[in-house]
């Protein structure tokens, strides 16, 4: 099966809205609760996540296709992926610190947090599960994986941004003492997730 633009559109809609990583798959909840107090950091975090997810998906796809599969060591997937992702994040951090100090100021502090973000490893594993079946050509499998990773990051950023905008206003609301902070954030997330469920059944 070659690259199919309908399929690409489906992947995009699915990753951003229908199967939003945070609100329907529960991947990356820790930064979602931790970094969603203000809009600006939320956007920077989102940008860093999009970049790392796309980059690490490219690397893990190549690793799986050209090293793990030829040597029949697919069971090393988890170990090798997490190591590669951790190394990649570390490398990006050092690279931006050295060459783009201004960018590092805005994004860099979020980079170490991303290594243990389950969304990054999650999308790498999902790519392998979804697009490594018989019938996908190498080009299709690779491009779907990259697109899936990029738009999963976009969906993550969208949810994070909406959440931070709501939480900025929540600061002024009168909330029972025991609901302040994390619990109310979960209730808000639950309502958002309910709204995003409206996208289910949205097909091409």
């Amino acid at each position, binding site marked *: 099966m070659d690259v199919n633009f309908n399929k690409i559109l489906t992947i995009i809609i699915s990753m951003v809205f229908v199967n939003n990583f945070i*609100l*329907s*798959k*529960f*991947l*990356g*909840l*820790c*930064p979602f*609760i*931790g*970094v969603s107090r203000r809009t600006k950091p939320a956007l920077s975090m989102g940008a860093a996540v999009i970049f790392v997810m796309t980059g690490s998906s490219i690397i893990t796809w190549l690793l799986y296709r050209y090293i793990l599969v030829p040597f029949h060591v697919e*069971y*090393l*997937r*988890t*170990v090798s*992926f*997490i*190591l590669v992702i*951790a*190394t990649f994040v570390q490398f990006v951090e050092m690279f931006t610190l050295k060459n783009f100090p201004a960018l590092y100021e805005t994004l860099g502090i979020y980079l170490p*947090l991303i*290594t*243990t*973000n*389950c969304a*990054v*490893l*999650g999308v790498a*594993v*999902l790519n392998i*599960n979804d697009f490594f079946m018989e019938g996908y050509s190498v080009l299709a499998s690779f491009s779907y994986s990259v697109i899936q990773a990029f738009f999963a990051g976009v969906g993550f950023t969208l949810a994070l941004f909406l959440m931070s905008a709501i939480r900025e206003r929540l600061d002024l609301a009168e909330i*029972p*003492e*025991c*609901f302040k*902070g*994390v*619990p*109310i*954030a*979960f*209730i808000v*997330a*639950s*309502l958002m*997730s*309910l709204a995003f*469920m409206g996208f289910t059944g949205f097909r091409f």
Partner: protein
Amino acid sequence: MKRTLFQEFSKGLSVSNPVFGLVLGLCPALAVSTSVSNAIGMSAAVIFVLTCSNIIISSIKRLIPKEIRLPCFIVVIATFVTIVELVLHAYFPNLRTSLGIFVPLIVVNCIILGRAEAFACRNTVMRSMFDGLGMGVGFSFSLIIISVIREVLGTGEILGIPVLAKAEPALFFVLAPGALFTLGVLIAISNHFRYKRGQTVKLKGGCH
């Protein structure tokens, strides 16, 4: 004051319960709590990985250079996760399908890396083992509470046995929003008791 081994074990259940107290390991806690049987499977996997990785990390803590300790921890954890994956693949294929990608994602579960970093790399093997067991049991405890609430309210059954025969189950609780709602309310309840006892521990969400 040195804690006894039993206290190392029991702190995971009460004061620093990973899910309700420290707000760690949320993704698997929400994603696999749709049914009690999934929750039990996930709990067993997490207890195994947490205890084993704590034992190994605390026994090799002197050999690991400080600068690269996190990658070393991750490799140890990933090894045990791979063992769990292979065992599930061989003996529990159904459980493996329903847990899905959350089995490989145990690697990035913040509880495990968090205990390695905060406890196992500076305590004895024995203590680390009990700490791992306690934290694992604490995690399972919260996971099972969430899954019981969700399964009973969402499907009217526990482990396939109907318990709410006369009531119409609310599908909401099995779906994603129900999970977030349940966890929010449970953390609020746990906060309520905390404040009542006069503990003003400020909760900080997230892994770090």
